[in-house]
């Protein structure tokens, strides 16, 4: 339980660049280090996080539940939100200093591309587990086209993928 709290606290504290960045973090700790969930469950948790409104971080609820039931989901969600909460409040006092600080900007400029690389790395492992045959591969390509080319909303794309899965896969 303490591991759960500390892990999600850490995830909340270091995920510069938005919620997607949490995916490689969660994968490394929850799947590889602690074995709280299988790779399959991890992908399913992220999928469910995409169906629900709100931030993708909400997948933490699933992981918390797997570890320690209802209390676990509250702990995971609370721990992952705690750093965000204090950072945002601290920002209210330091905003003008942060905005002008070149070192902060250089730090973030280095983190920005790295974070994309990390998301891609997580994407690779997830693709290896999810794209099991030609059909899942084609479905992923179709979804990608819908997202990038036709700018369809992500929650609609994921719902459609689920419906197609129900009937054809």
């Amino acid at each position, binding site marked *: 339980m303490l591991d759960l709290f500390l892990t999600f606290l850490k995830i909340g504290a270091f995920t510069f660049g938005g919620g997607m960045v949490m995916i490689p973090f969660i994968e490394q700790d929850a799947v590889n280090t602690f074995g709280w969930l299988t790779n399959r469950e991890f992908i399913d948790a992220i999928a469910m996080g995409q169906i629900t409104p709100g931030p993708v971080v909400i997948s933490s609820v699933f992981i918390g539940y797997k570890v320690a039931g209802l209390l676990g989901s509250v702990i995971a969600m609370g721990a992952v939100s705690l750093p965000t909460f204090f950072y945002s409040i601290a920002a209210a006092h330091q905003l003008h200093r942060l905005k002008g600080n070149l070192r902060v900007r250089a730090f973030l400029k280095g983190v920005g591309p790295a974070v994309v690389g990390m998301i891609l790395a997580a994407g690779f492992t997830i693709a290896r587990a999810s794209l099991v045959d030609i059909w899942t591969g084609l479905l*992923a390509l179709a979804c990608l086209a819908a997202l990038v080319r036709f700018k369809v909303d992500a929650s609609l794309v994921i719902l459609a993928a689920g419906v197609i899965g129900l009937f054809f896969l």
Partner: protein
Amino acid sequence: MEAAETDKEVPTPPGLLEMGKVLLKVGATGFGGAMPVLALVHTDYVEKRHWVSQEEFDEAVMVGQIMPGPIAVDAITHIGYRLRGWPGALVSVIAFILPPFLLMLALTLAYVRYGGVPQVAGIFKGLGAGVVAIIAATAWRMGKPHLRTVKTASLMVAALLALLLLKVNVVLLVLLAGLTGIALFRKPADLLPGPKPSGPNPTKGRAC
């Protein structure tokens, strides 16, 4: 000090209950990532109710981009704090998180119960393919601006390989990348386009 500034611009700071109600609605309907969520907040906070000015709203979004954590949650908490102090921040984050939390909990319970049913396995096979596409689309959208210079593009590839092949610890990787940034981008000119750690634009995809 921030509160005094806010009071000047916004004659009547909103009640906690009112703020909570608006954010419960946003939390329940905010599909599609940080930017669509922020658009909903903008409609209510800036256009309809005039709780914050456009400038304050933009600042909050910037806070969301600089600070770790989901961009929308950062921004919403920050506005809540500027409007009503600690209680405002607390009410904001809880009201926003509560609806998706309950929905996710319901899905989790259903998954634990019915996850083994063959039809359900089919659904998740489809969802898995969708997740891959969403991750690829997000990486494309977030990564495009970084492909413009050799330095940032190399950082991206280096992080990808470090995680994929060497399994470097993620926290260490973020800190190393930041320090590399400090070493590489010394001149203010390097930073001119502005710090856009994730550069989310209104294209779809979940980046919050």
